[in-house]
């Protein structure tokens, strides 16, 4: 019964989303205030019914209702309760419902927090969000129904959740990532609404900024969690594989990063308008491209769901309608928009424009690298693969000028900057960066002209420059301590996010250069030496978990004879799905990770073990966290909560 109720709730949500798409938009063109006023309750109703549908699905999972196909294929009665809940969005159907719920949630949030917006704009934004929701709910209802039953012949036991997804990282990763993906729909709707009205100004940019920032915040966290999960769960010790699905989340992130920077220019200087709108459209379009790539099965990936050509076709059609329609609107409206502001070649505007160029080039590289194999195959030239080396090489070239510009950017004034006043402070920053980089590497006794040195230099340049810039701004208020309390929250947000980027660059460069990996054959009592650490295999024994068996290995780690830590690595065999999973043992410190994963059993009671010492790998995720924290700080800025009321509302 509950599953049918869930389906009914989803159908109601669909009806409400259709109403939301039609009524306020119609009202906005015929200047009917009562129709515009309906947008808000409709948005709330759509959210409530989506929530009910999700709750029904979770209930079906918790009660082991194996008559529901989705439950039977992705859960089992032996699955721990928390994984039964997360299994509800572990499958294609369930994750689509989660996507719908998130979209409805964002729509409800917009409805709640847009009191300051003119009613007309409010109605249009919510109407466009309703249109997008209708597309996705229809997909969920007609193409991938999560509540479909297999009566009268249903299994007595489910097929269990994919063991890869039975991990804490997997509880957090999909909802956060989807919040990010779907969040860009809000910026998209704002951009379309503004295109319809033909009104762009810094007020519009100020309204969009917090929404774009919060979507970016979630997307950053989601990608970071995914990387952390892969590191712990896949057993290879890698944190980024340039897998097509990772790339699918990375592309909207790059476009979104460009968007939040471009929005800053539009808000502060009233220029870059058409560019900002284009980026807002692109960020969401790329989210849709990602959804299409993941769910259509056109690309081979560890993430791909069961493939169904019909679903892929639907998503492709939806993508084409959304992208084509918005570009058409953009083309017909944008030529009338003119920016008045003037700026010189050396100005913050130009530097931020450079930032955008680099980010979009990166986005283009990821896009081509991901899709090139697909085109190559469709053209009949044979199957190929483009892997890590290509992307690594391209990002190596891109990061150097990008980081150099990033260190410079915050120092440069809007409109026009004289070169001379910057030479001395930035010279000092450069010298300090050189000293820090060489100092760190000297303390590791490895000063060489390699990737690590380059990464340290760039990271130190960006980080020190960001800190020094805050001090400089603070000093302008009189004393530093007084100035530090007067600076905007968004200024701190920028500084923290930039430092996060510096930390990320250092982490990537150091761990790429100094990771030592050894695959060894060990019997109980054997000791392997890796990078100055002695790993002793003390015991291997059988495991008996709730839905898995397998083996566990115990290791003692010593450094120069001193006990460092004890490690516990597992190799699990999930009984229902009959798959083997590696649970690696990690001992984490800021300066290095010790990483051991248990491989296969070899003859003579020996085991294959993969032992890695990975310096600075924590910095990769720390950098991501700092970037997200930066976005949070920027969101806390007072100016986004100021009430702006515009009396001229009710005309189209």
């Amino acid at each position: 019964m509950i599953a049918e109720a869930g389906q009914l709730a989803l159908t109601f949500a669909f009806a409400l989303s259709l109403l939301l798409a039609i009524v306020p938009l119609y009202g906005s063109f015929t200047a009917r205030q009562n129709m515009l006023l309906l947008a808000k309750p409709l948005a709330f109703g759509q959210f409530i019914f989506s929530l009910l549908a999700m709750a029904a699905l979770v209930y079906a999972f918790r009660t082991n209702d194996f008559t529901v196909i989705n439950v039977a294929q992705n859960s089992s009665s032996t699955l721990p309760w928390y994984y039964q809940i997360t299994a509800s969005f572990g499958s294609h159907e369930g994750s689509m419902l989660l996507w719908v719920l998130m979209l409805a949630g964002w729509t409800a949030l917009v409805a709640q927090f847009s009191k300051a917006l003119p009613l007309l704009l409010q109605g249009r934004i919510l109407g466009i969000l309703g249109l997008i929701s209708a597309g996705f709910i229809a997909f969920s209802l007609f193409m991938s129904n999560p509540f479909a039953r297999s009566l009268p012949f249903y299994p007595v036991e489910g097929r269990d959740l994919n063991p890869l997804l039975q991990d804490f990282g997997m509880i957090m990763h999909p909802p956060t990532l989807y919040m990010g993906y779907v969040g860009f729909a809000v910026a998209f709707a704002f951009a379309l609404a503004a295109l319809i009205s033909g009104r762009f100004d810094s007020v519009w940019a100020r309204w969009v900024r917090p929404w774009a920032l919060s979507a970016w915040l979630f997307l950053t966290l989601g990608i970071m969690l995914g990387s952390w999960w892969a590191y712990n769960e896949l057993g290879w010790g890698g944190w980024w594989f340039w897998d097509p699905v990772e790339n699918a989340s990375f592309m909207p992130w790059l476009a979104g990063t460009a968007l939040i920077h471009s929005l800053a220019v539009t808000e502060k200087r009233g220029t870059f308008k058409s560019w900002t709108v284009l980026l807002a459209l692109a960020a969401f379009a790329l989210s849709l491209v990602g959804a299409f790539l993941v769910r259509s099965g056109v690309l081979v990936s560890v993430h791909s769901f069961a493939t169904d050509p019909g679903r892929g076709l639907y998503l492709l059609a939806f993508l084409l309608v959304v992208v084509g329609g918005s570009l058409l609107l953009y083309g017909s409206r944008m030529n009338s928009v003119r920016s008045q502001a003037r700026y010189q070649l050396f100005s913050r505007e130009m530097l931020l424009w450079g930032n955008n160029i680099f980010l979009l080039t990166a986005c283009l590289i990821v896009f081509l690298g991901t899709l090139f194999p697909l085109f190559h195959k469709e053209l009949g030239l044979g199957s190929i693969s483009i892997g890590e080396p290509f992307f690594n090489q391209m990002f190596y070239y891109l990061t150097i000028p990008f980081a150099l510009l990033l260190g410079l950017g915050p120092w440069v004034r809007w409109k026009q900057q004289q070169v001379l006043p910057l030479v001395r402070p930035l010279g000092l920053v450069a010298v300090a960066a050189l000293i820090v980089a060489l100092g760190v590497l000297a303390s590791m006794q490895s000063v060489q002209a390699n990737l690590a040195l380059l990464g340290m230099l760039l990271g130190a340049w960006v980080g020190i420059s960001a800190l020094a810039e805050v001090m400089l701004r603070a000093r302008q208020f009189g004393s530093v301590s007084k100035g530090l309390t007067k600076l905007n929250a968004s200024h701190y947000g920028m500084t923290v996010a930039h430092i996060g980027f510096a930390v990320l660059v250092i982490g990537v460069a150091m761990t790429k250069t100094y990771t030592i990996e050894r695959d060894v054959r060990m019997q109980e009592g054997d000791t392997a030496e890796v990078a100055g650490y002695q790993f002793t295999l003390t015991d291997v024994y059988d495991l008996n978990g709730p839905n898995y068996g397998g083996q566990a290995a115990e290791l003692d780690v010593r450094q120069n004879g001193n006990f460092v830590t004890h490690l516990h690595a597992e190799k699990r065999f999930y009984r229902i799905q009959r798959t083997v999973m590696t649970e690696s043992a990690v001992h984490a410190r800021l300066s290095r990770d010790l990483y051991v994963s248990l491989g296969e059993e070899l003859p003579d009671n020996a085991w294959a073990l993969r032992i890695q010492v990975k310096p600075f790998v924590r910095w990769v995720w720390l950098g991501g966290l700092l970037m997200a924290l930066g976005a949070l700080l920027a969101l806390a800025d007072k100016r986004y909560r100021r009430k702006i009321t515009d009396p001229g509302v009710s005309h189209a």
Partner: protein
Amino acid sequence: MQPRRQKRLAAVILVIALLTGAVAAMLYALQQNIDLFYTPSQLVEGLGKDKVKPVPGQRLRIGGMVVPGSVQRDPNSLKVSFDLVDTGPLVRVTYEGILPDLFREGQGIVAQGILVDATTIDASEVLAKHDEEYMPPEVAEAMKGIKHVPPSQQTTSEAPVKEGRY
């Protein structure tokens, strides 16, 4: 020219220069990093209409089914070798390291490596998907009409636990 036009021209030239540089670098990197995919029969008989055979020393990817009974391990190291097959000839793959969790005889896998001689590949990476029914799409395509034998039922290790950690 007016200063404003000059500025615009400079900006446009800058963009074009950057784009050209990026595209050139990308094509160069692509050329170095494309790995063609072969199945064992394509490797032996040649790929496509022209029957192009790879040359020893070439980096490539190969996908096929692990021939049951062909896996040989070196007793003192992690060296392992096995045969791959699709519809005809066998290709030998050598590898040193830990095989993926789902590597089994009879299972479809993809290996990336360097061609040593006409039918031997020294693999640097072996991939198997985390799905029992999985076969790489390229392999599935090359093997149309041939029955995929599911991996043999592996014995589970469900002996009682020595130490109660769970």
